[in-house]
């Protein structure tokens, strides 16, 4: 067998599998999305129909808030962990990254243990005399769940970026009389810019499409994945579910394409 036909033989199963179970189904999804009573205009419903538009805005706001909060938290922790060596540091790093493979459903349940009816936060606030605070099933619970989901991912990316920073630049700034804050603001944070954009895009795309966490927590909150789910399973509204899925997929893909062009890395958007 020649080299050329051998490599072709190596590639064929992958091409067949991907065509059958990914490319073809995705094409079908796009076609079904245009197959509703409104035809291709069904794709505009996500923007024109008030209920869908409100859900889209909700989801984008929630994903943006998650992204911003995650970036701030992860930046502080990652810079600290990379800049100091102390006993127990490795354990701390492990604690901050181990939830990486937790599925969204499990994270939703952990939020219930934290902020649900029998949750820790409610117990603490009751002991403090503030009444039982329960917010697991509100938008705040969902926000906390998304935060839980994205912190480990973002911390890893930012830690790697901090490690690559040239300490000489900071020393130079300090020797020129810059205060610690000025060094962080003018030297460290700008140098981490690409890592922020890349991991921020990942956090955003993940929060947009997170289904597992929303499935556990969002009984009364409309976010895009839950809307798609109810349209499909309860209302059997296949065309709408398909067009909304295509829209959601395009948003996530665009964000991650941006992330990849800036970082060169690959991170899965599961949830």
């Amino acid at each position, binding site marked *: *067998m020649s080299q050329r036909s051998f490599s072709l033989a190596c*590639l064929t199963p992958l091409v067949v*599998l*991907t065509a059958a179970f990914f490319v073809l*189904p995705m094409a079908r999804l796009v076609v079904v999305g245009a197959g509703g009573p409104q035809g291709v205009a069904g794709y505009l419903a996500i923007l024109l129909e008030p209920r869908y538009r409100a859900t889209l805005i909700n989801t984008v706001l929630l994903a943006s808030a998650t992204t911003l909060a995650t970036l701030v938290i992860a930046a502080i922790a990652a810079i600290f962990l990379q800049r*100091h060596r102390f006993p127990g540091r490795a354990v701390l790093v492990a604690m901050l990254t181990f939830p990486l493979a937790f599925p969204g*459903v499990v994270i939703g349940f952990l939020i219930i243990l934290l902020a649900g009816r029998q949750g820790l936060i409610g117990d603490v606030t009751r002991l403090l005399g503030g009444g039982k605070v329960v917010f697991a099933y509100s938008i705040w619970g969902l926000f906390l769940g998304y935060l839980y989901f994205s912190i480990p991912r973002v911390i890893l990316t930012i830690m790697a970026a901090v490690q690559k920073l040239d300490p000489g630049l900071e020393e130079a700034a300090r020797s020129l009389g810059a205060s610690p804050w000025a060094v962080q603001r003018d030297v460290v944070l700008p140098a981490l810019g690409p890592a922020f954009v890349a991991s921020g895009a990942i956090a955003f795309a993940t929060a947009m499409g997170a289904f597992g966490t929303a499935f556990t927590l969002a009984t009364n909150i409309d976010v895009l994945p839950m809307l798609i789910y109810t349209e499909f399973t309860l209302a059997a509204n296949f065309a709408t579910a398909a067009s909304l899925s295509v829209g*959601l997929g395009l948003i996530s893909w665009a964000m991650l394409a941006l992330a990849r062009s800036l970082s060169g890395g690959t991170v899965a958007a599961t949830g």
Partner: protein
Amino acid sequence: MRDRLIFAGQLLFTLLVAAFLVVPALLSIMAGVTENYFRGISSGVTLQWVVQVWELYADSILLSFVIAFATLTLTLLVGVPAAYALHVRGGRLSRLIEEIITLPLAIPGLAIALALLLTYGGFGTFRRSWLFILAGHVVFTMPFMVRSVMAVFATIDIRTLDEGAASLGASPWRRFVDVIVPNARPGILAGALMVVTLSLGEFNLTWMLHTPLTKTLPVGLADAYASMRLEVASAYTLIFFIMIVPLLVAMQLLAEREPKS
């Protein structure tokens, strides 16, 4: 003095973030072995909830392992040769293929699941078997195997090794078995750990693709969260942790062993 204050402040902050991630997991482990969570751990420690979960969900848990290893087998058989071919061939077509197989990382699982349902939902026997879930898992995990193996090829100049073996007269098949696969081993191992971990925990696709007779571990979790008492749900989560944490630890150890670039 000032530096010490800044250090203490940052340490406290980082500890709080770690607590946010770890405390709920500890709560769930605790709740899973508590006699009555409402009354607290003082009500006694028990394994009855774990036993109950096993009786209720053993089938789902076992099916999850069957699917995870079937997914691994397929990603190995299909993904490793493909990674080699994509690397050696290069060119625009290879990049396009790589681009397409990576797309499932960017598209929410829910959308992929809907696409599969709309395409194959009518094929009854396939739809009802666990092979339907397997198809979803393979699509979702394949990029991890392919990219992980390709990453290794990119660092060791596999093309020169391959050409060297070819010039000595080895057939393509011999070279693949004796040169390519042994050199790709770190990438295969990392990819395999990732594939099994992801498959065991995959919910977004699986929830849409499962039927009452094909439930996996995470589907059972969602089921337990919705309909069982807190202790049972916690015990189930505990079982999930016991299965997934060793894989995570193995992944971290593997990542540390790799030479730092």
